[in-house]
């Protein structure tokens, strides 16, 4: 089959690789009809997430048709011919984490738990196409994929919704939604979202759906801010205005009640000398993150507010504003999305027309054009917001 692979820092390559096969009884094989490039793929391709190997198949947002199921998958759960969206965390459904619906912390699905344990203290779930740290699972930017625990994760799509309407249930829509849900939104809340990329856009839409009074989008790309504005959110361009004073102005001096970091470890800007410090430390790998968005969210949030982090961080950061966090009674909440928890309720919201996931798609390319898709997205060319690949 054809598959998009990591072939060195800042290099992807579509290659011929063997077709996937059933390795565990609860596996299924899915013929992929749509897959997407995610912002966190960029962290892999850039080399910020360690443990990538030449030939690793990328991609953790995908959907398609089941063409084979292992002997351990009950027919009432999944059958050949079913149309499914596959969640990015691989979860067993049986461990204590899964029992608590903390699917991205599944205790059984990472065969490389020893590496993750050294990095994170405790291991995390296996993730498709997301380094050997998260299990060394082949990803879904390919014609076919092996899906472990196929009786637990995949969501069957039984209506005639298009791929584009449901594909993002695999990751970015639930991730954005969880970012808003963690904010415990009240009807009087002003919610500020750092990052107007795909996850940020869905965090904004979700904050609105959950009842926020006002949603603010913070980014520097005019096309991303325009996209947010068209959806009814308030744009703030951090290249043009001072973010803190603008947020104070928009909130009567209080600061946003709830702040969502949808940026993560490759944030731009910040005060010039701190940003330079982060870049240098990150370049020599003595710090893995550039936590500018996180710092600004903490400093801007109103006292007693919530800072919700859905941007990806990989390792260690410093110059963390612990004083602001502690002295002003802030709540910090975070997590890789527990996608399985949100897929069904969000599918229902899509069916009811409350959320339109298709609004962020700017490019649809063939799988063989994956490299071009990565370049467009990474370099924010041609107003690229979200790339869908068709195998």
């Amino acid at each position, binding site marked *: 089959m054809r*598959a998009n*692979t990591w072939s060195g820092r800042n290099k992807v390559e579509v290659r011929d*690789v*063997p*077709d*996937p*096969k059933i*390795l*565990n*009884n*609860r596996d299924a094989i899915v013929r992929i009809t749509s897959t997407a490039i995610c912002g966190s793929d960029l962290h892999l391709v850039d080399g910020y997430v360690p*443990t990538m*190997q*030449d*030939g*690793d*198949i990328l991609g953790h947002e995908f959907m398609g048709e089941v063409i084979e199921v292992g002997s*351990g998958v009950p027919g009432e759960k999944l059958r050949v011919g079913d149309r499914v969206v596959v969640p990015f965390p691989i979860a*067993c459904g*049986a*461990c*204590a984490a899964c*029992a608590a619906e903390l699917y991205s912390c599944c*205790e*059984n*699905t*990472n*065969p*490389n*738990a*020893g*590496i993750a344990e050294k990095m994170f203290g405790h291991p995390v779930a*296996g993730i498709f*196409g997301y380094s*050997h740290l998260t*299990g*060394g*699972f*082949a*990803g879904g930017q390919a014609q076919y994929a*092996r899906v*472990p*625990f196929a009786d637990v994760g995949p969501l069957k799509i039984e209506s005639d919704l298009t791929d584009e309407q449901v594909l993002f249930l695999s990751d970015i829509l639930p991730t954005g939604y969880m970012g808003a849900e963690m904010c415990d939104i009240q009807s009087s809340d002003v919610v500020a979202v750092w990052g107007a990329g795909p996850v940020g856009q869905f965090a904004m839409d979700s904050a609105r759906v959950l009842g926020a009074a006002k949603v603010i989008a913070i980014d520097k790309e005019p096309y991303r801010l325009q996209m947010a504005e068209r959806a009814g959110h308030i744009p703030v361009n951090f290249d043009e205005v001072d973010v803190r004073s603008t947020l104070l102005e928009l909130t009567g001096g209080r600061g946003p009640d709830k702040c969502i970091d949808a940026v993560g470890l490759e944030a731009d800007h910040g005060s010039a000398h701190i940003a330079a410090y982060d870049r240098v430390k990150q370049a020599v790998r003595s710090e893995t993150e550039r936590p500018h968005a996180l710092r600004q969210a903490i400093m801007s949030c109103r006292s007693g507010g919530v800072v919700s982090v859905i941007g990806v961080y990989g390792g260690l950061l410093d110059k963390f504003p612990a004083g602001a966090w502690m002295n002003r009674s802030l709540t910090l909440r975070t997590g890789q999305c527990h996608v399985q928890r949100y897929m069904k309720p969000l599918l229902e919201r899509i069916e009811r027309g409350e959320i339109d996931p298709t609004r962020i798609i700017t490019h649809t390319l063939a799988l063989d054009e994956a490299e071009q898709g990565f370049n467009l997205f990474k370099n924010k060319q041609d107003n690229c917001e979200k790339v869908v690949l068709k195998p």
Partner: protein
Amino acid sequence: MDLTATTTIRRPASEVYAFWRDLENLPTFMAHLEQVRTTGDRTSHWAAAAPFGTDVEWDAEIIEETPGEKIAWRSTGDADVPNAGTVRFVPAPDGVSTEVHVVIVYDIPGGAVGKAVAKYFGEEPHQQLDDDLRRLKQVLETGEVVRSDGAPWGKRARKEFPQRPAQPLSDAELEKGADA
């Protein structure tokens, strides 16, 4: 050499105990064991793969046992690598799960076998036992050892890095089996 490791398994103690007490189940999660053959109510014969094509074999007996709570064993006779161990099954505070606490003591001899065994266990022998318990947890909670494309042999510290790339195995690799 003393090794200790512990894990929590979301199954009742009686079930985890019963699985372990059927000693022939041990190779399903203890990666270095080739076979455990029950030879009597409390006696068994163990065979383990060691590096450089060396095989290590020994007889063992259960020396103490409390059903549902504890099993203690030791090697008997002229074992290549004398060893003894204890596993305790303790109900976890959640009322559902079982804490498994293992202590294994190896008397690593000198000579070629001793060197081979020491090298086999590598720099992080605790990791090896830790891996065994992770696989035990996988087997009891999910029904099997979880495999990925990059780690088709499942959880194994010695093979954690470098791995094969995360792409499907070729037919030839698949034929070679878990150690491809």
